[in-house]
């Protein structure tokens, strides 16, 4: 296609041209010069449009300010238009509405005078309202010439773009001490005394104590050798096990109601962020439509970002394929934090299986509290839902009796009581170990 073929006459040009010429012909044939007065503005507009008809195709490119954002955070979608000829008057763009993307302006429509305003105002604020991989666009960009006589929709880079919205971690903090782990390196204070950096006490010298540990001031005061004892350091290996086989409840995005998967992912993000910030190793395992997805344990904020990206790509399973087996590669001495709405007995079975393999499991109940499944046309739906909830309570009670803590997600401090208990009873296995 030739560049000038991009510029097609519009209905406005046809109106000015045909209307003006027909009035002029009528004026000549009927000897009515007054009709020429009526025809003048139309003929003038048509002639003006033709004289300033662009010949070059404008170059259009659109881009997103940030490819990855947290849900609820905004970024900018921008259209760049280059008109080498300088004959483009107005440029308008419409960004197609897509799910879970808020646009500002709300209708996703912007227009500028390219010559006077430039293409800077040809941008729009976009805000993903729910985690996941979100489509932005496609966009329709239309350039018009003088008097809207000719119009062109450049076939440039106006296809849809992808914006990854990471889950926005809930507010979370845990003041509980870490669960005892077998390692002797790391940044956490061990419940045992040993070689470390954090001061524990000053005690009398015992055979085997290092000389550099001698506390000379206390030794001179008391006349007997005293040494400084320290708490041993150890690391912590946390495995976040997300059950994405069900997504129960309505989701209104970051600003409204949360589904069970929303709660799970935001809680997982918060827990991961907390433990990463304290220097612990965090691994991720998810059961979803793609089967079991794993991310090996690591530390650092880059790893946190990677975990959130994997979480954002999650797809709830449409059919039940969960076998309730223990995921591979959980590692020795790991604290397994399982996040699940606990609607499937297999999820609880998995928690029991992991505990039987000697790992500490903490189950976080992510079923939203305000959920209510009912159908006005079918009263049995509500009854069935209540029965299911009763069964679920019974299953959770049984799991609790087996020594697995189940706590509902309530934000900051949700896990403190349970983690403190696990720390106190560390080493005492409640569930029967195989």
């Amino acid at each position, binding site marked *: 296609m030739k560049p000038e*073929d991009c510029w*097609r*006459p*519009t*209905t*406005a040009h*046809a*109106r*000015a*041209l045909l*209307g003006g*010429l*027909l*009035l002029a*012909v*009528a004026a*000549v*044939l009927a000897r*009515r*010069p*007054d*009709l*020429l*007065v*009526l*025809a*003048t*503005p*139309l*003929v*003038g*507009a*048509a*002639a*003006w449009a*033709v004289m300033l008809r662009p010949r070059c195709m404008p170059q259009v490119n659109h881009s997103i300010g940030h490819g990855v954002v947290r849900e609820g955070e905004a970024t900018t979608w921008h259209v760049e238009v280059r008109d080498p000829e300088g004959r483009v*008057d*107005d440029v*308008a763009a*419409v960004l197609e509405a897509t799910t879970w993307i808020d646009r500002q*302006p*709300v*209708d996703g*429509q*912007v*227009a*500028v*005078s390219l*010559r*006077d*305003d430039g293409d800077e*105002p040809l941008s729009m604020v976009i805000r993903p309202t729910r985690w996941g991989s979100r489509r932005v666009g496609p966009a*329709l960009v*239309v350039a018009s010439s*003088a*008097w*809207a*006589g000719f*119009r062109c*929709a450049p076939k440039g880079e106006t296809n849809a773009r992808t914006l990854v919205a990471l889950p926005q971690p809930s507010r979370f903090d845990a003041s509980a001490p870490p669960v005892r782990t077998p390692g002797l390196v790391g940044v956490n204070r061990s419940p045992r005394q040993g070689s470390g950096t954090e001061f524990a006490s000053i005690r009398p010298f015992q055979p085997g104590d290092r000389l550099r540990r001698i506390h000379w001031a206390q030794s001179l005061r008391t006349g007997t050798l005293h040494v400084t004892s320290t708490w041993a350091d150890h690391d912590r290996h946390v495995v976040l096990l997300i059950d994405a086989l069900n997504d129960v409840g309505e989701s209104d995005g970051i600003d409204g109601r949360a589904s069970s998967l929303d709660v799970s992912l935001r809680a997982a993000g918060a827990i991961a962020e907390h433990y990463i910030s304290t220097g612990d190793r965090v691994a991720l395992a998810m059961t979803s439509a793609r089967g079991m997805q794993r991310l090996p344990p690591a530390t650092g904020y880059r790893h946190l970002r990677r975990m959130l990206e994997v979480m954002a790509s999650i797809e709830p399973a449409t059919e039940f394929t969960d076998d309730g087996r223990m995921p591979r590669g959980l590692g020795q001495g790991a604290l397994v934090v399982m996040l699940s709405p606990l609607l499937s007995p297999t999820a609880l079975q998995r928690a029991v299986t992991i505990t039987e393999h000697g790992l500490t499991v903490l189950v976080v109940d992510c079923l939203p509290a305000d959920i209510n499944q009912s159908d006005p046309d079918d009263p049995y739906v509500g009854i069935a839902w209540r029965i299911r909830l009763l069964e679920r309570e019974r299953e959770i009670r049984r799991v609790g009796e087996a020594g697995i803590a189940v706590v509902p997600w309530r934000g900051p401090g949700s896990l403190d009581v349970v983690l403190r208990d696990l720390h106190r009873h560390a080493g005492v296995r409640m569930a029967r170990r195989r």
Partner: protein
Amino acid sequence: MNDARFPDSWWLLSRVRGVGLVLRVLMLASTVVAVGCTWLAAGHTVPVVNVVIFGLALACVALPDSHVGLLVVLVVGAEWLVMVHDRATPWSVGAAVSLAVFHASMAAASVAPPAATWTRAMCRRWIRRSLAVMGASVGTWAVVAAIHGHHEASSAVLVAASLVAISTAGLWARDGTLDAGPHHKFAKSSK
């Protein structure tokens, strides 16, 4: 005519705001003024025709990027031709200005989607250009008023020359050239 058009519908009409709303009001108001000028110039009117024109203008409000506007122009022109007999009436300036406003508002409404916010520069440019073509109408009327009363004998040669000139101008105005290829024709471009 042109496949690069914004979607328009009755639903989108409810999203019109700001300058888009003003343009649609102008479409209706200019049509009413044009009909009023014809009435005042003729001294009488045909209500049925006025109702048809107003109905077409209402359709233009919903579909600014359509050929309904051409119908409005032609019906107004035909009504003027039939009803008005004073060839130098100053009301022709009013009717021409109304047609200019009608055409400009329809054209302007088609460059941006209904809910788009117009920048000041866009408004200024469209007003400036509309005033220019309105000024041209006043100039034409001044020429018409000046030559009014000079009765020349009818000349077939002059009429034929005028028609040839108009046709040539039309051919040029179609694409800005007289030897446009077939792909430039309206019929082809509507593909």
